[in-house]
């Protein structure tokens, strides 16, 4: 199952994780992840046929409570905003055209 992790794969993982890694970090994380995932691969020998996965396990342990609508106090919610413009939450611009406005 386990594939050896090299710097090329690590760079791809960093891209997926939305992280920039320095050359030094690429080397360090490649070595670390390769050793740690080799340890993780020890699970492959465990017999698990017929056993359930994530959702079923958690539902059995702590079922989600019923979802029901509640009234929101808009004034109280606006007070929680770190920054506001009138009745709106202010967030940093994320699109280039917004930056130039």
């Amino acid at each position, binding site marked *: *199952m*386990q*594939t050896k*992790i090299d710097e090329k794969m*690590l760079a791809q*993982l*960093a891209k*997926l*994780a*939305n*992280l*920039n*890694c320095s050359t030094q*970090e690429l080397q*360090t*994380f490649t070595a*670390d*992840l390769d*050793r*740690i*995932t080799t*340890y*993780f691969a*020890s*699970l*492959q020998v*465990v017999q*698990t046929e017929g*056993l*359930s*996965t*994530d959702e*079923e*396990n*958690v539902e059995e*342990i*702590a*079922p*989600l*409570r019923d*979802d029901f609508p*509640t009234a929101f106090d808009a004034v109280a919610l606006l*007070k*929680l*905003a*770190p920054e506001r413009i009138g009745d709106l939450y202010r*967030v*940093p611009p*994320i*699109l*280039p055209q917004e930056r130039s406005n």
Partner: protein
Amino acid sequence: MTPPLYTLSGIALRDLFKSGQISAEQIIATFLQRIEEHDSKVGVFTELFKEQSLKDARQLDAKRESKQPLGQLAGIPIAVKDSIHIAHCATTCGSNTLRGYRAPFDATAIAHLRREDAIFIGKTNLDAFGMGSSTEHSDLQRTRNPWNLRCTPGGSSGGSAAAVAARFCPMALGSDTGGSIRQPASYCGLYGLKPSYGRVSRYGLVAFASSLEQIGPLTHDADDLELLFGVISRDCHCDARYISLVDQNEDALPTTLKGCLIGHCPALLAEVADETAAHFGENLDKCRKAGARVIEVDLADLRHALATYYIISCAEASANLARFDGVRYGYRFKDAITAEQSSALSRSEGFNQEVKRRILLGTYVLSAGFKSGFYEKAQRVRAKITTSINAALAHCDLLATPTTPGPAFELGAVQDPLQMYLLDNFTVWSNLAAVPALSLASGMSSSGLPLGFQLIAKRNNDEVLMRFASLVTKALVPKEVSANFAAL
């Protein structure tokens, strides 16, 4: 001679306050003075509420003066791990990413404590986002073990544990994802409870691994533990997985160790230091002498718990920490041109090496081609481990293990991340199985550092577990731990 106030339990302080023998202001001033004198050595607090705690204390004194009803925690100073929101105060999570972030609301646990007249004295240091076992992975400061300042207090709730051990407050809140309350409790000579999953609301706790973590108490004794848990486990309508249970019938709680069946698995002791194994054996003997029956149980599946835990927790962390993109929370890299650059550079500069390592691990085990072999496999092994633990607990009242493979280690002594993960060997499996687990202070090592004894009970039997812990404490007689405290 009257003992100093800072050596008293939370309950003792509350009773002195309620009976009018001392004021809340006296209590807070005493602890603030002790913090002032010693925290520069220990490094507990990321933020100290000096003025606010004195103001709260004076208000509480006025409340008592006017004969209003007082809460169960009236006058007790409590420290809070800095990953739990207190409204309008900083929540750093020990990370540069959240420097300057202020919580807009109270966590449910905090709101419950407020209603019972607890006084918050400060926020405590932690490994960034709870990722670590020594508090060395905090971006803010280094926290030391009050019993030996060269040693780690454990982690990730190391600040909260050190706060109680240093007698900066009698109670603290931590959170436990894979042992982050129990391991520092063990290293610092305290009592620490990881509640059953769902018993304490996670609303207002910054998420690391949502299917594993719980907020829980750290104290000097089982009675304080029970009091604090009773308050923070109250209702929450915001955490969708909170379990509301009817109050535990006092008559159903154990009153003796006679007939108590304690299971232990000798095979688990293979990697434990000789002194820790010997101490654990002595503890079991003392329980036997107090009337408990000790039997061996087969928990062979637990040898896979650590790998299972790290696969699942890293996967959940990689998803949970995706929200820190420089837009909605915390640090934002200012000179990026595109949104993608801004997000990647904000995350890369804000997260430390350990957080990045775990996000990358989580990304790997969830990525196409590896998810089935790692993440889904780990979920199935988790089901198998849960079945094994529940089967053992079907025949026993308690399971017992050492809390950690050895006492606290020196700061900087464990550099290899995998070796650091292996220190969680005894604690992760109760998080996987959602059962309650508790570490109690059971004695001292030859090097003068505390040792812990871990007890585990059936799911949702948290109150039974704490009552047994009180009875086990009497059997172990850890006078050297309970009567003494770290000389700072």
